């Protein structure tokens, strides 16, 4: 019966229309767009799914950890509604201004406080900053092995068997727990919470921990522990200049497109 931990991040919906995206260059921050909802970062939902599949097959307990602020209850509790057992929210001004390193440190300290774990799951990357570092960082801080970009995870004879996606295929890797695994979309669709799950999520334990609760060294947290500096944030300019090829009907337009490509010597 494995103890599992899943790290999930709450972010603005990454699939919102690109046209709605704005940044504040001076503050180096992304501006919240109206009508864009908060979600659990998609790969993190898949990480929850990976843990649930193991729980379905072998039982065990799943603790979900999230570091952030302005948590939206219904959003961040989705993993509980999907079937995870407990949740820890890390919320403290000391965590702000973090880079991948200080985020990984805080999560690793929280995981130590949770205590027993066989498998830790993360998403391959958070779909806001797309870094893909925090999972590896947690493994490094905990001194445990990691396998990244998994498309399937199973327990076989006490070992964790991971299918790791590589260019043009995948590798099957065996590793003894404890291990950290980052999950990719090839794992497949995460399950939808059922009504029963949504109801029972309301009574599942949710703890909120501060920097002090996880005995963190303040110099390693947030901006103080960050090594990476964001100097500039901007939206690349596009010259919108698409020429729409017309025709009497769609077939005609298709033929005209071919003629156009010939005209500009592309074919």
């Amino acid at each position, binding site marked *: 019966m494995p103890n599992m931990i899943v790290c999930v991040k709450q972010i603005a919906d*990454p*699939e919102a229309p*690109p*046209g709605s*995206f704005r*940044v504040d260059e001076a503050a180096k921050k992304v501006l919240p767009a109206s009508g864009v909802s908060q979600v659990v970062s998609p790969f993190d939902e898949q990480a929850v799914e990976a843990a649930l599949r193991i729980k379905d097959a072998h039982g065990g307990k799943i603790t979900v950890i999230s570091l952030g602020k302005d948590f939206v209850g219904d959003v961040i509790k989705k993993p509980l509604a999907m079937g995870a057992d407990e949740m820890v929210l890390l919320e403290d001004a000391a965590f702000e201004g973090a880079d*991948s*390193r200080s985020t990984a440190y805080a999560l690793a300290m929280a995981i130590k406080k949770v205590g027993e774990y066989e498998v830790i799951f993360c998403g391959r990357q958070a779909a*806001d900053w*797309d*870094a*893909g*570092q925090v999972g590896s*960082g947690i493994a*490094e801080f905990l001194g445990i*092995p*990691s396998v*990244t*970009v998994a498309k399937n995870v199973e327990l076989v004879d006490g070992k964790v*068997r991971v299918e790791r*996606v590589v*260019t*043009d*295929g*995948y*590798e*099957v*890797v*065996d590793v003894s727990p404890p291990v950290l695994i980052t999950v*990719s*979309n*090839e794992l*497949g*669709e995460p399950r939808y919470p059922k009504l029963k799950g949504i109801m029972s999520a309301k009574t599942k334990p949710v703890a909120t921990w501060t920097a002090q609760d996880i005995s963190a060294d303040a110099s390693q947290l947030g901006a103080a522990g*960050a*090594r*990476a500096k964001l*100097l*500039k*944030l*901007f*939206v*690349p300019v596009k010259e*919108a200049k*698409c*020429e*729409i*090829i017309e025709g009497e009907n*769609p*077939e005609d*337009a*298709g*033929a005209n*497109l071919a*003629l*156009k*490509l*010939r005209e500009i010597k*592309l*074919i």
Partner: protein
Amino acid sequence: MAENKGVMVCGEIIEGKLAPITLEMLGGTRALADTLGEEVSLVLMGSGIGNLASEAIAFGADKVYVVDDPLLADYQTDSYLPVMEKVVRQAAPNILLLGQTAIGRDLAPKLAFRLDTAVAMDCIELSIDPESKLMLGTRPVYGGNARGVYACETRPQMATVRAKAMEPRERDDSGKGEVISIESGLDPSMIRTKIVDKVKEEIVGIKLEDAEVVICGGRGIGSPEAFKDLEALAKLLGGAVGATRPPCDDGWVPSSLQIGLTGKIISPTLYIGVALSGSSQHLAGCTGAKNIIAINKDAEANIFREAQFGVVGDYKKVLPAFAEKLKELLSG
């Protein structure tokens, strides 16, 4: 940390040859190294790889660190990480670059944490700030909607480089360079993972990354069968078929055909996007395409903001007529 000097590239080897990304980084880092007045070095890890050092020198390395050990035959985090750590501690580079590949993605963050520095992942541009002399790494963030420029004051300054972001230079066999062998220091007990199988997806025809023409199908294609029409068109134009994520997730095509932020990065001369909306995450993989053509029934689709030419209409009607006309033009 004034003692850190040089631009170091972590090399990759594919089927006994230097990987394209490695040649690209060797070519592209020259400008950085020249600006700083520093050398370019390459680290090669593998088993039975000595002969590749001269290749690396011909493609621009001033120095090659070779770590040759049977335990390095396959990439595993637990074997490559301590070796890179050892080489970096010994050579003390100012800048360290890895490719944004299955290896670099895995190795770079761990190495950065272990060396107590930072890495900017998936950079599309690197430069040196004229005043601070720090490396500036520009990377797409928010699914390609924005760009962030990063720096760090710790050493080495690390980045991973996206495929096709840099150009390899011409081979020059008269180039001179130094080859330094380093012991791996590995023993099998350090490697906690075991690769029990490798499954390769067969690629028929031209590789997507190398194709000059890419026909890309999206969710609107509707079925695996309909992808056959795209294949026929790709064949006609001597190109390859790619896909957005939904057709891969739904199993219509192998996931190795996915183009985008978390798929293949392509830079063909001609890209034709069929029945796809042009999400930022997809387009993140095709920004290098020289000509983007779109076929979509929705005139408001984002792809028309990126394309040079487009047809608004049902692809089922547009595409056959397009293919027919092409055939005529190509045979005439």
